[in-house]
């Protein structure tokens, strides 16, 4: 890698290239390849030029083909992501938590998803917000990360458009500082900035007056931060969470220990939960849930492509390694 081309050329005299080498040589003219056989081309039959695509175009063809095939796959009906037993249990937990809330119960919703992974949990998040609204809960939405705030602003605007007024929904805004800001919220309450009848009620009651904290988690602030920072300070506040599957290994132990009372973290669980909410959603108002679920056909096709690429790239090496190990063992 560190040797120059000149050094290689000085060490080894140039060899006559074989036909195959000649075809693959990068120094070969790429634009136009004329037919070069032993016989000279006659003037009546001019050599047919063959256009060769540039490297950028050639690299773009597989991506374009993948996009086209994904688009086609998205029209294939009848593909469903099967929910495992743990997914079904996770859905049941979250449904039970929401169903157990009395009418008018204040719920603190922390929206701190990442813009990159939020598409995976958007369907479940909107389903949960709709379910909480249908149940009659009052929501206070807060964010501790800039990306989470961007998502929260969009979701608040959506709920307001659906008819959630200041008596049902209060925006606690963005609180800078990450986990220290979380500690501040747990210790000092919602603060003086939020306005409206619901905000006044929550200000009097403090964080302890919330009946549930629903954490829409991301990489920076998620269920782990809430369990570590809020639960020791407000032990009576139950915490439920919706996270991308990327965070599952980190937060599953908290669900196992009961520190999280519900956790939806896989796409099949999110789809199953969304279907359940959709079946009982309100006809109008903020409790409606009409979101389209993620396209299973495109997801499955993408998975198949990924499996094929991974196996094609690793299969040869693994087979060669196994063959040589087998030969060594025999000898």
């Amino acid at each position, binding site marked *: 890698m560190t040797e120059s081309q000149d050094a290689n050329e000085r060490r080894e005299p140039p060899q006559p290239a074989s036909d195959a080498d000649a075809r693959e040589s990068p120094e070969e003219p790429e634009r136009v390849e004329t037919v070069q056989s032993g016989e000279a081309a006659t003037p009546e039959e001019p050599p047919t030029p063959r256009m060769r695509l540039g490297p950028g175009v050639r690299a773009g063809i597989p991506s374009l083909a993948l996009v086209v095939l994904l688009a086609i796959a998205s029209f294939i009906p009848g*593909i*469903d*992501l*099967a*929910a*495992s*037993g*743990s*997914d079904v249990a996770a859905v049941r937990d979250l449904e039970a938590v929401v169903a157990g809330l009395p009418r008018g119960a204040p719920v603190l919703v922390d929206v701190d998803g*990442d*813009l*990159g*992974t*939020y*598409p995976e949990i958007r369907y479940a998040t909107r389903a949960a917000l709709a379910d909480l609204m249908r149940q009659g809960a009052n929501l206070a939405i807060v964010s501790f990360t800039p*990306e989470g*705030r*961007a998502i929260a*602003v*969009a979701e608040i*605007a959506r709920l307001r458009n659906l008819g959630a007024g200041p008596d049902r929904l209060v*925006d606690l*805004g*963005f*609180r*800078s*500082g*990450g986990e*220290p*800001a979380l*500690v*501040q919220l747990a*210790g*000092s309450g919602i603060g003086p900035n939020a306005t409206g009848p619901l905000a006044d009620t929550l200000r009097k009651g403090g964080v302890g007056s919330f009946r549930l904290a629903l954490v829409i988690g991301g990489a920076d602030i998620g269920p782990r931060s809430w369990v570590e920072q809020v639960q*020791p*300070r407000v032990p009576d506040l139950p915490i439920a969470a919706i996270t991308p599957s990327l965070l*599952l*290994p*980190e937060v*599953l*132990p908290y669900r196992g220990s009961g520190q999280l009372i519900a956790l939806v973290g896989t796409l*099949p669980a999110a789809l199953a939960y969304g279907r359940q909410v959709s079946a009982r959603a309100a006809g109008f108002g903020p409790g409606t849930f009409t979101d389209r679920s993620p396209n*299973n056909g495109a997801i*499955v096709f993408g*998975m*198949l492509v*990924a*499996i094929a*690429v*991974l*196996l094609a*790239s*690793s*299969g040869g*090496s*693994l087979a060669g*390694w196994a063959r040589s190990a087998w030969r060594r063992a025999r000898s």
Partner: protein
Amino acid sequence: MRRSIAAALTALAGLVVLVDLAIANPALGGLAGWLNQLLVLLAAGAGVAGALMLVVRHVGRLARREDQLGSAAVLLGIGLVLLPGLAPGSSGADAPAVRWVVAALLAPLVAAVLALLFPLLLVAAARGLRIRPRETALILAAAAAVLILLLPIGGPVGSWLTTTAAWVREVPIAAVFRGLLIGVAATGALTAARILLGSDATHD
């Protein structure tokens, strides 16, 4: 001397916050709250300083005519988010223009960057296969196996795949991840103890 004062202050602040969690005392709670507030202000200040440094750095690069396209893109992005939010009469992050920038530009761009993860991993895998073929092939095969387990196939095979996928996620992967977390936590505690005890050579 300077090092001792910094270490003592750090140790004191850490102890106050720690003891406040264990003992319910209003005075101690107030002090811990004040320290926490200071931390929030420090974080906000660091954010503002970081943004300013970014602007200064890229304006400087533009002035020196180094990577003009990249610097212009960074400054344009900062301006697109900041100007509508800081404009007179704007409601900040809730302003429609900021919401449009986030929904129409920022979110798709970040999602696209995340979507590039797979091709980038493939490029890294191709390099890994050249340098350490066996280990890289094993990692890729394991990734393919996990994807196969997640395939939505119906019938008893699909049911077995789904159950196995859940077991793989909840037992081996979770165990490895917990091991990593414990390792990170132990290293963090060790580093913190070294700083608190003033035995960290780099803490000056």
